[in-house]
């Protein structure tokens, strides 16, 4: 119950804190290091994680295909 409340509170605060940032105000948001994804050159790291670890998904990486058996 407490866990659910914390999750809901986090989601609610995430939405409620939204402000509209105009295009001219996005100079920092548009910095290449602010991108909400891994760099292309990090794809091999994500691939090796998907081979060696059980967890996959929710990171923009591949979620299937290939045996990952070596």
């Amino acid at each position: 119950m407490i866990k659910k409340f914390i999750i809901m509170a986090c989601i609610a605060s995430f939405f409620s804190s939204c402000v509209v940032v105009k295009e001219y105000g996005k100079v920092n948001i548009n910095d290449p290091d602010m991108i909400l994804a891994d760099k292309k050159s990090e794809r091999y790291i994500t691939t090796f994680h998907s081979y060696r670890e059980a967890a996959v998904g929710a990171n923009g990486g591949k979620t299937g295909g290939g045996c990952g058996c070596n």
Partner: protein
Amino acid sequence: MKIKHLRIIPVLLFAALGYAQEQPQDYKKRVLETTEVDFLSSYYSQDGNNAAVSGGIGTEELTDFTATLVISIPLNDDDVLSIDAGVSAYTSASSSNVDPFDGGQAADPFIASSGSSKADTWANLTGVYSHSSEDRNDIWTAKLSVSSEYDYFSAGVGGSYTKLFNEKNTELSINGNAYIDTWNVIYPSELRPFENGREGLSNSLFTQNTITGNSNYNPSFTEIDNDGRNSYSLGFGFSQILSPKLQGSLLLDFVQQDGLLSTPFQRVYFSDVADSFIDNFQLADDIERLPDSRFKVAVGGRLNYYIDETFTVRTYYRYYFDDWGITSHTASVEVPIKITDKFTLYPSYRFYNQTAADYFAPYEQHLSTSEYYTSDYDLSKYNANQFGIGVTYTDIFTKFHIWKIGLKSIDLKFNQYDRDSGLSASIISAGFKFVMD
């Protein structure tokens, strides 16, 4: 006279500006201005003593070299085609022990064999077509992929739709993928004589070698009747700019897999079956057996904060669970540090843990009466720590040229990964981005 002429100039400029503002806006920024080429490469190495091929004991030494070329071509103002072609060549000590009885030396799970399974090449080709709407608020993609290695073939199809709104402060996306895979089933060499209709203990492997321990080797082995594996995923994404310096995203992925989800050349040893050996190598009691379906759920989030012109903080968290009994937490933080206008450092740390699958037990701890069993330590309980350092060189003016291609950036990264169960790995990755003039 000259001064009079000069006075006319500002008048003309204002007139031109007014004229320009009245004209319909026929200029549209292209989604991708020019063709981009990414050359990516990595070198990976690992070692450990819990090889799944030899039932949870034995060398896990493996090296892998990968090279990939990604070409992104703007087809017009709105459409981009990306072609992604890659190869990966690996050598694996544990895979070499699919057949440890190559005659070169005494068979041993901790020593690599010289058999043909010690190395393989993986090749992949992926094409992605992307279309953006006139206002750039709607983006569709379609993807086709194929990959192949000696014992495996995979074909994939996928697509996504992204909607931006709230002055591009909010983004919602949905994506789906399907992979249809086929195994070329390979069993451990000592089990092949026990396939249907074959000679069993009369095979030359047993007549030319001495079986020690239980000399009446009689594995409970039946062949696999399904060589296909299908994976279907459905993902949802939501991202939001929270302030001029803060943005975050939430991701939710569902994955359903069906078919042959075990690896046919991974051995299992039972505690209630007498052990048989050739040289120092224990003969398999059976291969790994796992259910033919698996459902996975992953929910994750990213939060990035721009501190100032020098520092940025990038964070990530993911919770994962599946119906094989595994739950997992992943958390990472990276702090890019701009040391000059061209160089940025990327120190990073990542923590990962998982519980064991219901079907996992270490070497010689399974019972032959169980329905499912594996000694693959990738499905065991463990914690892992990963430390990384990277550096990026960026030249927005692309001064360095090779023919008509200018170098835009170079990424180099090193990561060290250690599990508390003993596996240790390191990976060096590099990325070179070029743009066409």
